[in-house]
């Protein structure tokens, strides 16, 4: 039987990085995700797996260290929270432009600006729609438990290397700070030099006589070459949208009303669905697990089945726009949110749901 440990979501990120053969972590502390680096420093993986753990002088430095490591085909990552991730966005755009794989964990807190240190989901637009400049997408995966935090590191690197693209694990203060049972999977060793050549033949690992130089850059001064590259990215994104969508449903099969929520909000909405079902109202839940690619087709399908939807988010209404695009007017889409680090309770959402649907 696999070992089961009680840990915070943030601790799960750190333990998972070590156990999944990550080569390097570069970060800068910020609440509510400081336990990631604290745990790494306590575990001292440089003495066991040889993983590098480095506290950079800023978030800008950390993401550029990630750029450097990724250029060499290494499995490298960073983590931060909202204001810190804003500082990283330039680097993330450069990595998207240089087609470099990496995992960035964003444990969101309330904004804008320095905001609060309490949980929030107010960076959906920033991370899902870009963050940095240029026509690019992050692959965005949204954990809802400490186990997800553990599992999504390995999954994140799998996607990052498969598509040579940055992957953002978009979490929030609740998932980061909450402790739950986490089941550890068997250790994966770090990749050997040969395995890196196989997984990342594009990497700058030293030029042998047998091939041309590998060049990692996001700079192209020729408009036609840049456009060709942009189209290549588009083809990649099309494949990602076609093949990598992941979501889960709770009692959505016969639902007349559908909640759409990600991360911690989806957990809270499970209790809302239970409460409404107890009153005889056929409610269901769709939780997008990948935020990019978004489960557009499934939401469109359910839009024809239900009387209305409600997007529940810890922000002023961001994902709701993607839900409305998906249903394309086939049913009303309501929104309920809390901001500033405040968290909605199941009872509160039930009340707002009834009000929005004239059931109060």
């Amino acid at each position, binding site marked *: 039987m696999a070992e089961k440990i009680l840990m915070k979501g943030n601790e799960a990120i750190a333990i998972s990085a070590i156990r999944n053969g990550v080569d390097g972590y570069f970060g800068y502390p910020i609440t509510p995700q400081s336990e990631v680096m604290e745990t790494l420093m306590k575990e001292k993986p440089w003495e066991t797996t040889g993983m590098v753990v480095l506290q950079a002088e800023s978030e800008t430095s950390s993401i550029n260290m990630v750029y450097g490591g990724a250029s060499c085909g290494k499995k490298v990552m960073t983590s931060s929270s909202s204001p810190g991730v804003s500082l990283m966005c330039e680097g993330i755009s450069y990595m998207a432009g240089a087609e470099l794989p990496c995992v960035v964990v964003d444990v969101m807190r309330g904004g804008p600006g320095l905001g609060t240190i309490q949980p929030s989901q107010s960076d959906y637009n920033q991370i899902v729609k870009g963050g940095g400049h240029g026509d690019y997408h992050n692959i965005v995966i949204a954990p809802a438990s400490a186990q997800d935090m553990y599992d999504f590191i390995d999954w994140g690197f799998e996607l990052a290397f498969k598509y040579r693209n940055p992957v953002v694990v978009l979490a929030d203060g609740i998932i980061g700070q909450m402790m739950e049972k986490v089941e550890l999977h068997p250790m994966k060793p770090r990749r050997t030099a040969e395995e890196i050549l196989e997984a990342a033949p594009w990497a700058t690992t030293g030029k042998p006589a047998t091939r041309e130089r590998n060049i990692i850059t996001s700079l192209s001064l020729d408009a036609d070459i840049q456009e060709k590259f942009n189209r290549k990215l588009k083809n990649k994104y099309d494949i990602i949208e076609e093949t990598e969508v992941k979501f889960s449903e709770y009692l959505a099969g016969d639902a007349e009303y559908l909640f759409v929520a990600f991360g911690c909000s989806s957990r809270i909405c499970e209790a809302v669905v239970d409460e409404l079902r107890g009153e005889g109202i056929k409610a269901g839940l769709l939780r997008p697990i990948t935020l990019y690619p978004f489960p557009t087709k499934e939401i469109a399908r359910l839009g024809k089945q239900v009387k209305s939807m409600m997007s529940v988010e810890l922000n002023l209404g961001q994902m709701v726009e993607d839900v409305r695009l998906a249903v394309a007017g086939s049913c009303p889409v309501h929104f309920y949110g809390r901001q500033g680090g405040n968290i909605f309770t*199941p009872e509160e959402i039930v009340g707002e749901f009834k009000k929005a649907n004239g059931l109060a």
Partner: protein
Amino acid sequence: MKEEIIIAGFGGQGVLSMGKILAYSAIMQDMEVTWMPSYGPEMRGGTANVCVILSDKKIGSPIVTKYDTVIALNQQSLDKFEKAVKPGGLLLYDPNGITRSPERTDIEIHKIDAIEVAAKLGSSKVYNMAVLGGFLKLRPIVSMENVEKGLAKSIPARYGSLIPLNKAAIEEGMNAVE
């Protein structure tokens, strides 16, 4: 079985670690758990609380507003959470420093003088374990065997020698609850 518990008191009373040991003990009994602290710009002497949910099944919302059990270790916590006990639920409090006693009549109310237990054992650090003992006496959700395993998992190896003292505090707490 699902038990939704909030433990609230002053920072430094061991509220968070008490919740952690309870949660770890439940994992040893193969239950599902969530441990959700109030976090923020907290400091020693300020208030601290943690919501612990123990269940046989997968836990949905880690955020609840009504609790099966409220454990209140100071007046502020008692004032804030007495009304949050579900009807028929449990309120356990430490009477030290309490000037306004609980008033509800539709819940089960017990008290534990955990300061006295800790003083008797000669360590203020086991105060929280005395409270945990009191709770487990009233709600024997996890067996003592699993509590011991949970303790061993929660206490860093270098402090392993303190396990017997913690266990003694839990047992004394079981006797002290009124």
